[in-house]
């Protein structure tokens, strides 16, 4: 059997070629059905079609080239891990995806079934040797944002180097002090891994680069406030998902180009759905690539998703880090503080998130909110009670859905979503 260049690379990375082939064969048609069937897409999405078309090819090759020259690849699962240190020290951070049912049964051979799909999917990728990004990375960085993940990282560490950052539960003085120290320790860890020192200069550069990408995403978010919406929620979600593992500068360029195009559309009053289509804000658990399920159902029912209050959304790009600070200590403090503002449900209390949801709904002129909860994710499920109350008070309709990556409940979800849209 002759292997293609990609297969050759995957087998060198220790990928289980057969299962991986099945995964790739499944992804193609799904992408075609969900993405390529959309009408009037922005041209800027062409790049993303190209990336997904070779999702385990080109980018992995880049990472391997980087590693061949002694460069390091640092994999993460959560928006809490400060990517700036990696860029500063010449390492490449990649956010691992964990959004497919495909790797769940593999994980369930070890993990309890009643664990959130994100945890199972990510663990299954490693266990089943399905993900070249996992294989190509030198270090996986975990965090203590949820108990399930925390324990999964211990199991993952049996197979690959894992480093865990402790995220506090409270944004108190003690919590902040803990996080400040964790950030400094992580910096030291990255310096040790790469053998490069993180300095005012290279960290300053990295902060600027990542900020630039965040700014473009904020601009994208603002453009989605237009009616008709210039881009589908599916496409905006995809751009976010891809940005989390791609090169930061390339992404800034791509999103800038996309935004320029969308700006033109908004000026001309062009959109992807008719003016007046129901506008939905999604809020809740992250949607790792290729988890497009909810977006697809909502947009197939004729509504348009105008924002994601999520880690694969606003929590990824919202806050900036002050630029131009002249000494390392203050830079580290500012950086740590920025990450502590992430409104993850792991915090108690987390009222900031409620304010954020309402603000986003108003800014984006959403008609309603769908609170998305990965099944067995207890923090978000419980916080949803407060989201429900806060939105009732603000007079914004809410639908709560709890689901995982499988398709079993697609019919029920559709009934709920249709009813919700009919009700708006």
């Amino acid at each position, binding site marked *: 059997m002759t292997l293609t260049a990609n297969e050759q690379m995957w087998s060198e990375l220790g990928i289980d070629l057969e299962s991986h082939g099945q995964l790739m064969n499944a992804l193609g048609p799904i992408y075609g059905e969900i993405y390529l069937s959309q009408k009037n897409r922005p041209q800027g999405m062409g790049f993303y079609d190209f990336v997904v078309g070779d999702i385990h090819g080109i980018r992995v090759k880049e990472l391997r080239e980087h590693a061949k020259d002694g460069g390091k690849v640092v994999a993460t699962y959560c928006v809490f891990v400060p990517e700036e240190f990696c860029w500063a020290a010449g390492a490449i951070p990649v956010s691992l995806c964990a959004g497919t049912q495909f790797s769940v049964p593999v994980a369930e051979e070890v993990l309890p079934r009643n664990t959130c799909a994100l945890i199972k999917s990510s663990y299954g990728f490693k266990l089943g040797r399905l993900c070249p990004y996992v294989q190509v990375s030198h270090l996986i960085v975990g965090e203590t944002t949820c108990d399930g993940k925390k324990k999964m990282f211990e199991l993952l560490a049996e197979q690959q180097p894992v480093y865990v950052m402790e995220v506090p539960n409270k944004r108190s003085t003690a919590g902040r002090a803990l996080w400040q120290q964790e950030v400094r320790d992580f910096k030291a860890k990255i310096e040790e891994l790469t053998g490069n020192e993180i300095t005012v200069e290279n960290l300053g550069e990295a902060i600027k680069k990542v900020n630039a990408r965040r700014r473009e995403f904020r601009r994208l978010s603002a453009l989605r406030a237009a009616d008709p919406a210039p881009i589908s929620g599916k496409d905006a979600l995809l751009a976010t998902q891809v940005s989390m593992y791609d090169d930061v500068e390339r992404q800034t360029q791509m999103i800038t180009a996309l935004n320029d195009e969308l700006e033109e559309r908004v000026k001309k009053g062009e959109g992807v759905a008719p003016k007046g289509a129901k506008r939905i804000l999604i809020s809740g658990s992250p949607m790792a690539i290729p988890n497009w399920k909810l977006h697809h159902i909502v947009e197939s029912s004729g509504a348009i998703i105008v924002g994601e209050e999520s880690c694969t959304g606003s929590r990824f790009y919202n806050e900036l880090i002050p630029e131009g600070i002249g000494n390392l200590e203050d830079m580290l403090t500012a950086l740590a503080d920025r990450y502590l503002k992430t409104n993850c449900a792991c915090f108690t209390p987390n009222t900031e998130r409620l304010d954020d949801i309402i603000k986003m709904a108003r800014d984006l002129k959403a008609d309603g909110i769908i609170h998305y909860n990965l099944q067995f994710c207890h923090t978000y499920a419980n916080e949803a009670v407060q989201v429900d109350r806060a939105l009732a008070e603000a007079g914004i309709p809410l639908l709560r859905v*709890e689901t995982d990556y499988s398709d*079993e*409940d697609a*019919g*029920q979800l*559709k*009934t*709920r979503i*249709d*009813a919700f849209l*009919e*009700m708006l």
Partner: protein
Amino acid sequence: MITAGLDLGSRTIKLVLFDSGVRSSEVIDSGLKPLDRCRRLLGDKQYDKLVVTGYGRDLVAPELSGATISEISAQAAAVRFLYPDAASVIDIGGQDSKVIRLNEKGGVLKFEMNDRCAAGTGKFLEIMARALELTIDEFARTSLEAKRSVTLNSLCTVFAESEVVSLINKGEDAHAIALGLHQSVVTRVSGMARRVGVTGQVIFAGGGAKNACLVRLLEDKLNLKITVPDDPQITAALGAAIIAANGKNQGE
């Protein structure tokens, strides 16, 4: 104008022809080829517009040149038509149970629906009736006659079924088991009802309302008077036909 409402449920298909009131209605089993059955059911019936609801709506509506509406909006429309003062709807269907609160205009204000599991649905009762070797009607009657009930430990259909089998083997009274099973459905549904905050005149629509034991237990549990329409099984189909009459058509 005559409109048609078709409700494609998991167990049965219902058709209502509407013309300022119910003109005719029919209920048949869904079977394995629901589209063929729908075609036959519609036959050469004359109507101007068709709206399809129920879990199979997206499958058959395009084939039959009909529009679609969710069961939730359909139930709301029917209940409002039958009872202009109704404020809440409970619907225990074959595989989904729903509780709906209506706004002043009769639209949906808020709703809850069971998630993917069968607990609290008609499916649950059906499987349990089978475990007790009773028809669904006998099952309801048996539980109405019970003097006491056994509490089932599990709301999960699969586990409850084995629990039932072991209770029978232990010689437990079928009446008490049947009542316990009905109570467990009502526990689930009333949980949803409280979350939605049912108030005012409550209508129990959908096929489950034909079960008198469920009606009585729900009234007790929620401490409310519950109204059951004459033919509760066809309300979703009626709602679809009403929505067709009010202007929803193909492509809207």
